[in-house]
């Protein structure tokens, strides 16, 4: 009989969802540079990777995270108000997304899942464009080449192969950019993710596997996906890996920078497991009270990624009224722009359904489009043809 009960596999002491710092014993400990209380702790290996982060940049990372949380809150509200069909909150994962995305260069390329809306913000995606998919106005909101970020992937793990292929292209081009792919703990069970690691290792491609272990794949706990620390799986593929405190923006940035440097200089792929927590539901259609304990959420709230940077800024005497006011103003402005962009987004037209299926004319589809446009026109009233009534 199959079971996900801890202990069945002899690993009761430290499943990968054990957040207390234990681990299964094969890997090194979790990298942390800022404690939940906001204290900067030194790390012999990773300090060097963030030594150049200035006070001002620390403030900027704080601002990013506050703004992203505000985007998340506003989008959730827009969904509740009927303006979005669905929204996948990233609440709690701000440090993982900001710390990694801000380590990238413009010419690096991101292949993400649907929850990396904080990464999209960091890449410079227009605010309203983040919402296009969720409002149902198109299947994606932006041109991937303007921000070097693919549009959200919904098939779990599929994008890891795209990143690996893109990285193979970088190698063929002789460029020094990298590809980074974001996925969750659930995705690590998918064949595509494992196959991507095989290819990346065989070809030593410049790709970073950035796994946000947020502990939950909808209702399934991480222990159902992996009986060892997720980061430790990478060694089986011959890929160096690191487990990092995903709620610590500096630690995430340090680990990502290390991986990027390795990839840029021919060192091949790296696997990063950022241990974080999905504080909200899987999507606005989900109800986590059906499957998880409220105490668990409380534990993680005490490790909030924004609170700890705020704590660090405070300890350093950087949390001035001016900074707080500036960050609050920015978050307000972004929320207003997001809401306006959502509500004012032009609706698609009925015949848009046929657009871009192919890049050149297709006789089958052209005939269907012709017939449907005649059908719509048969209502006589061009207004009616474009209304939902016309489609009924």
């Amino acid at each position, binding site marked *: 009989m199959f079971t996900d009960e801890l202990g069945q596999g002899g690993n009761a002491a430290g499943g990968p969802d054990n957040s207390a710092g234990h681990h299964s014993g094969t890997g090194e400990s979790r990298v942390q540079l800022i404690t939940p209380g906001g204290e900067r702790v030194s790390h012999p290996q990773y300090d060097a990777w963030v030594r150049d982060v200035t006070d001002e940049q620390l403030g900027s990372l704080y601002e990013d995270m506050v703004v992203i949380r505000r985007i998340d809150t506003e989008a959730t509200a827009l969904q509740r108000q009927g303006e979005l069909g669905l929204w996948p909150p990233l609440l709690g994962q701000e440090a993982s997304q900001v710390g990694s995305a801000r380590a990238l260069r413009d010419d690096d*390329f991101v*292949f993400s899942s649907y929850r990396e809306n904080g990464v999209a913000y960091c890449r410079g995606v227009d605010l309203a464009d983040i919402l296009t998919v969720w409002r149902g106005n*198109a*299947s*994606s909101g932006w*041109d*991937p*080449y303007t921000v070097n970020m*693919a*549009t959200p992937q919904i*098939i779990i793990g*599929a994008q*890891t*192969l*795209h*990143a*690996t*292929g*893109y*990285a*193979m*292209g*970088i*190698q*063929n*081009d002789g460029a020094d950019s990298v*590809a980074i792919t974001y996925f969750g703990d659930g995705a690590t069970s998918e*064949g*595509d993710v494992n*196959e*991507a690691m*095989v*290819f990346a290792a*065989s070809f030593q491609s410049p790709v970073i596997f950035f796994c946000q272990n947020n502990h939950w794949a909808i209702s399934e706990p991480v222990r159902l996906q992996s009986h060892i620390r997720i980061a430790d799986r990478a060694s089986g593929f011959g890929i160096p890996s690191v487990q990092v405190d995903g709620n610590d923006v500096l630690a995430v940035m340090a680990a990502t920078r290390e991986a990027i440097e390795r990839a840029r200089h021919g060192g091949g792929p790296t696997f990063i497991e950022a241990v974080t927590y999905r504080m909200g539901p899987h999507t606005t259609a989900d109800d986590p009270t059906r499957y998880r304990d409220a105490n668990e959420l409380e534990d993680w709230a005490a490790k909030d990624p924004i609170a700890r940077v705020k704590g660090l800024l405070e300890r350093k005497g950087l949390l001035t009224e001016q900074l707080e006011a500036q960050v609050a103003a920015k978050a307000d402005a972004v929320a207003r722009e997001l809401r306006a962009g959502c509500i004012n987004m032009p609706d698609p037209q009925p015949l848009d359904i046929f*657009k*871009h*299926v*192919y*890049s*050149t004319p*297709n*006789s*089958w*589809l052209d005939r269907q489009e012709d017939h449907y446009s005649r059908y719509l026109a048969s209502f006589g009233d061009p207004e009616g043809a474009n209304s939902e009534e016309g489609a009924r």
Partner: protein
Amino acid sequence: MTQMTFARAINSGLRKSLENDPKVILMGEDIGTLGGVFRVTDGLQKDFGKHRVVDTPLAESAIMGTAVGLAYRGYRPVVEIQFDGFIYPAFDQIVSQVAKLHYRTQGHVKMPITVRVPFGGGIGSPEHHSESPEAYFTHTSGLRVVSVSNPQDAYTMIQQAIASDDPVLFFEPKRRYHDKGEVDESIDPATALSMEKARVVTEGKDVTLVAYGPLVKTAKDAALAAADEGVSIEVIDLRSLAPVDFATLEASVRKTGRLVITHEAGQSGGLGAELAASITERCFYHLEAAPVRITGFDVPYPYSKLEMHHLPGLDRILDGVDRALGRPNSLSGLEG
């Protein structure tokens, strides 16, 4: 004009594409050092290098998924799936990614990927080596699907498929790989007959017989045999399975009034069903009889000692022609 085998003709077309476009990259299992299990890519890695003719690990989904990433990067990947029955692990990447990315990204990202698939039976192989999975892909929006029947088309159409900005599933009839034919390598694929057009390969006036890939040869043989009995069969090589060139089919059926379709794939929900339905819709009043399908059975591809019962052969096709003509046939006396 040069006499060459089907496999050699594809090899020559691939070579031309590799020469003409530095973004063309070949990927697959055993295609490099070995030159492919059918030797279709023989010598290409030696001449173009390991970075352009890539031996991949054995993971079909990854071959397809990394091809997607390479296409994102501006490459034009040509993927070999070693055997038809091995395409299913790549099904999700083909159907959910390759086929949909242009639509998903509103035209910003092109997927000029060619997927070469040796398909069909008749070579005495074990399971998974003789399948005809084309209908899964003709049913998938966003893909173009073609099949070639002769060395000249193989040479020309592989280059057209690679040049296409849309993804193309390219079905190669593996039992014809060693057949020889005349190939004119000076033909410019850009001005040759488009891969989207069907071709009338034998003119006739009594019955339209539609085939593609491996069965075009069988259909031509059937037309020759029927001619001895005074029956004039018009054979059409479909070439493009999605979209189908219905204009060419319609013109033929309006002339003959009778339609017989043959493919190795099973009957129910197969491409023949689409052809029969569409031709019936488009030229119902020109039809003298119901369209007839002569196909593989709705069985898993059978073990090799029985495969010749499964594969439509000359006699079974002619029996179908008789049915279309209302002549005595194996089903005479049965209603419907």
